[in-house]
């Protein structure tokens, strides 16, 4: 892998990255924690967008059965939080 790994801090930066890549026809690989990255063939992408730093619970309303999280949030963190409300 010769390309760069980008870790966007917010949606604006992410949108800028994707727009730049799309305009230049540069393929991107998008990863979280990469736990299944070893499966299948390697992705022929120039650069990597790493979403694993984008973690956290944005909104959780147990009475509405609705949870909104950042894309890099681990399942373990989600389950811990839901468990507090028996969900």
């Amino acid at each position, binding site marked *: 892998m010769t390309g760069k790994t980008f870790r966007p801090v917010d949606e604006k930066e992410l949108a800028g990255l994707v727009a730049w890549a799309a305009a230049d026809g540069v393929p991107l690989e998008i990863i979280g924690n990469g736990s299944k990255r070893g499966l299948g063939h390697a992705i022929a992408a120039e650069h990597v967008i790493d979403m694993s730093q984008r973690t956290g619970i944005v909104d959780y*309303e*147990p*009475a*509405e*059965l609705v949870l909104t999280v950042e894309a890099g949030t681990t399942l373990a963190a989600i389950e811990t939080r839901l468990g507090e*409300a*028996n*969900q």
Partner: protein
Amino acid sequence: MTIAMPQPDTGVLAARDRLIGELGAIVPPDNLVTDEPGLKTYECDGLSAYRELPLAVVLPETTDEVARILDLCQRHRVKVVPRGSGTGLSGGALPLKDGVLLGLGKFNRILDIDYANRCVTVQPGVTNLAISQAVDHRGFYYAPDPSSQLACSIGGNVAENSGGVHCLKYGVTTNNLLGLEIVLMSGEIVRIGGKYMDSDGYDLLGIVTGSEGLLGVITEVTVRILPKPASVSTLLIGFDDLAAAGDCVARIIASGIIPAGLEMMDRAAVHATEEFCKAGYPLDVEALLICELDGPGPEVGELTGRVEKIAADLGARTIRRAASEQERERFWLGRKSAFPAVGRMSPDYYCIDGTIPRGRLAEVLTRMEGLSERHGLGVVNVFHAGDGNLHPLIMYDIDKPGDLEKAEALARDILTLCVEVGGVLSGEHGIGVEKRDLMGTMFSDEELKQQQRVKCAFDPEGLLNPGKVFPVLHRCAELGHMHVHRGQVPFPDLPRF
């Protein structure tokens, strides 16, 4: 008819006899309806305020016939409206004057029951209840249970993504569906998914489920079946005010309990049903909940106790636990008789369908009372409180001039209120023609155009069930490269409803 539909194509109307001749070459004479009394049978679905006679009704019996009919109609640029049992409540199967109505009632066979893989494959005209009945002797059932389950077809359930009383715990149609065979407007036969979960690639099954007959004609359905729960416990809980009942619903869910069903009836509904069927409901309450828990015996016993405690803490006036199967059936009898009970109070009623956040139940019901007074029509509320899915029944008299328009205006106000508090236009009945013109309250123009691009990928000519769901009919060619030039919308001649 108070709702605008696409302008009939005069060329298609003029060539009716030729089309009927060609349809007659595909299906036997008994499966082609062209006489006026016969066509009248199909003039409306469950949303009976809107009616239209179709150009012809064709009742194919095989997938091959469906493919040939669609291919024929596409070549002649004839619109097609698919229809299951016609029990839909949003007008999804409302015929078009210049369209062929494609009835799937003759697709009525159960093709395969596979207990090892817990799934059943059926033709689309099989009724919802017939699937459960076919596997009942082995202790299985099909979970989604729309109240029309005795009559509604599984194909229609998929098209509308139907729900039911028990979808709070078991999900709506899309959560219980594994595979489909559909025929595209081009006549191409496509299979999506199969006897397994999470099929490869994009979620086409998800796109087609709830697409209201706009993407393809469903010719085969594979659904999951579940073992019947080991035990069931049902509670009847009455409150002095709506807010406490709404709180009770929210607290049950927030504490981690997901009842199989959690229904609410307002005072008007309790009184109407009690008079109609004597279910033994308490008459001194403002809101009545029916809470049903199912699962293994010990779990159900524990959870029932916890729900009773939540209700008692909130000052419930009545808490009754069904002591026998007979008593449980009586609890449900009132709920299930609510629609006919309202039907006896009022010459006509209009059942609408919107969904709101559970936390806003009391507020929305109170504001709805105000709207009801302002429009001068009574509203009775019987609904799926557990998932915030409201079914206000507006009482009107179609023979009274202006009453239908009043009912429509009240329905619009109620649905707009649902969207305003963070809810959605539909819970389980679909958009159809009924809520078509309200789509703009929920989606921006660009969002609606994006949805229409999906439609274009399946049906570029826009011949399958046009006039439903989308408030503006864009041509697909125009959506392919949409430009707004200096704030001017192109194609000002497009039909907008």
